[in-house]
């Protein structure tokens, strides 16, 4: 630890605390206080509105799908990137990061171009009975896209650090590919997978821009919780907007808390 002069240390500490209060704590606490300004009225109003309930259900559904898809795909791609050498590996590695840098609105527009009804793929799928754009599959696709790198970026460094010694040992002891994966690889990366999943979960719950473009934002059908917050707020139903925002915040805080509660046990072992 670097020993700073005492006044400087204090100044730095208050600067950080002030920064966090102004940008995070105060705004978020205002959401909470506004939600409960009239006691439980806002929450009651929100939870009796069919539109809000439908939006929450859709968000839950989309989040579960997006997290499961990103979990399977993320772990698979991480293994591919770390354990195998192939042509185009660097390109793939860069592509995986793309969703972090591209604006979600652009993602939404891009998906729209590929899967809308008058495009080749979108049209073909529609003829088979699958509507993508302005429907749940499109919302899931957009959410999967924006949350794609989160599992991979957590798992890849851990896979590199763990090395393949244990996997080779397991192979020499008679383990097949699947057995080695389930008994050795997955247990040794499990915390990275958990963090990745939690991050993907939080990101999926909160996705707004890409979903807004592809969903069409149709109340009761394709409106997710974040879209409902925006719409109710714009329609002077601030109470409902605060209530839904509060729920989204609680979910995010629960994710972070769960991880920080789980982690010390791992460190202690």
């Amino acid at each position, binding site marked *: 630890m670097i020993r700073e002069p005492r006044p400087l240390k204090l100044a730095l500490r208050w600067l950080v605390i002030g920064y966090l209060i102004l940008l995070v704590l105060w705004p978020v606490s205002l959401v909470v206080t506004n939600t409960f300004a009239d006691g439980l009225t806002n929450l009651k109003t929100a939870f009796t509105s069919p539109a809000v309930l439908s939006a929450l259900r859709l968000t839950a559904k989309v989040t579960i799908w997006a997290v499961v898809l990103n979990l399977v795909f993320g772990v698979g791609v991480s293994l591919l990137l770390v354990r195998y050498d192939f042509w185009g590996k660097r390109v793939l590695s860069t592509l995986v990061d793309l969703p972090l840098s591209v604006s979600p609105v652009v993602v939404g527009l891009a998906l729209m171009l590929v899967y809308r009804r008058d495009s080749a793929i979108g049209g073909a799928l529609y003829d088979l009975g699958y509507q993508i754009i302005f429907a749940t599959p499109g919302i899931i696709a957009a959410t999967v896209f924006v949350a794609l790198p989160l599992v991979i970026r957590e798992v890849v460094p851990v896979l590199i650090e763990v090395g393949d*010694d*244990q996997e*080779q*040992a*397991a*192979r*020499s*002891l*008679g*383990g*097949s590919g699947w*057995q080695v994966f389930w*008994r*050795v690889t997955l*247990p*040794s990366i499990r915390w990275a997978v958990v963090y990745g999943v939690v991050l993907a979960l939080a990101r999926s719950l909160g996705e707004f821009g890409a979903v807004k473009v592809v969903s069409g934002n149709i109340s009761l059908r394709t409106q997710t919780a974040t879209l409902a917050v925006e719409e109710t707020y714009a329609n002077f139903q601030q109470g409902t907007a605060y209530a839904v925002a509060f729920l989204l915040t609680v979910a995010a805080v629960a994710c972070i808390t769960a991880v920080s509660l789980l982690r010390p046990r791992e460190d202690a*072992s």
Partner: protein
Amino acid sequence: MSIEIAGVGKHFGDFVALDDINLTIPSGQLTALLGPSGGGKSTLLRIIAGLESADSGTVTIEGVDATGLPPQRRNVGFVFQHYAVFKHMTVAKNVAFGLEIRKRPKQEVRRRVDELLDLVHLRQFADRLPSQLSGGQRQRMALARALAVEPKVLLLDEPFGALDAKVRKELREWLRRLHDEVHVTTVFVTHDQEEALEVADTIVVLNEGRIEQIGSPDELYDAPANHFVMSFLGEVSTLDGRLIRPHDIAIHTVPGPGTIPGVLVRSQRVGFEVRLTVRPVTPGPDVTVPLTKTFADTLGVREGSQVWLEPSAAGAPLVAS
């Protein structure tokens, strides 16, 4: 029988790791693959295990052509330099791994794990995690884990390389005793000639992807096939145009038949021995002769003294190339 390696070659890009290796490793013995790093010995071991594939040639284990078999079907036990323990499993679970993979009955697994933990003296650590063990204990656990599946062949890749000198010495004596009990065909890779000479029944010297010599420790030490083997197996001096082991040189204060005169240029005490550096009158480099402290004292020479060197007949010195 046992392990037959025929015409095995392996390249990494331009680097020739192994060049047409032909080798038979006899059953039930402890064989050392000895050589400098980059000599190809680890690559050969990994090819036997199936962890690496050969570019050419075949590997036959106990009469079965294993060339195309994946590691899990070769029935070999492999012990890694850095232990490769399963960090998230207890010691007992580590040892049980191979048996559980083979879906053996629970009772049998428990009995066998207990047996093996007794064998490697880790019974009391059965429920610990590997992170709570020392390096030597981890490697013994890895050995028990490899032995659990009753492999036809046990392969050890620099098994004691990551351990400190004292533990290394203990473990290799222990490995020798263990092998005398278990009798599984064992091949271990080492770059430490002392380790190979002390532990192995047969030593295979590998250098630059080729076999330099195969033989018992005595054969290799007493009758090295070439300069490389001789110098790799121990210290070498050049005296009178011939390579000779320093302790095969006798030192006298009076001339005798076949002696070479020289001047003592340096006397260095290292613990129990004294190393005398002598500059012979014949052209060539200085020669270092190790003596016991007691003998050096009775000799009564000091730096600048005239001495006579006598190559002993016991060694079979090679002509220096």
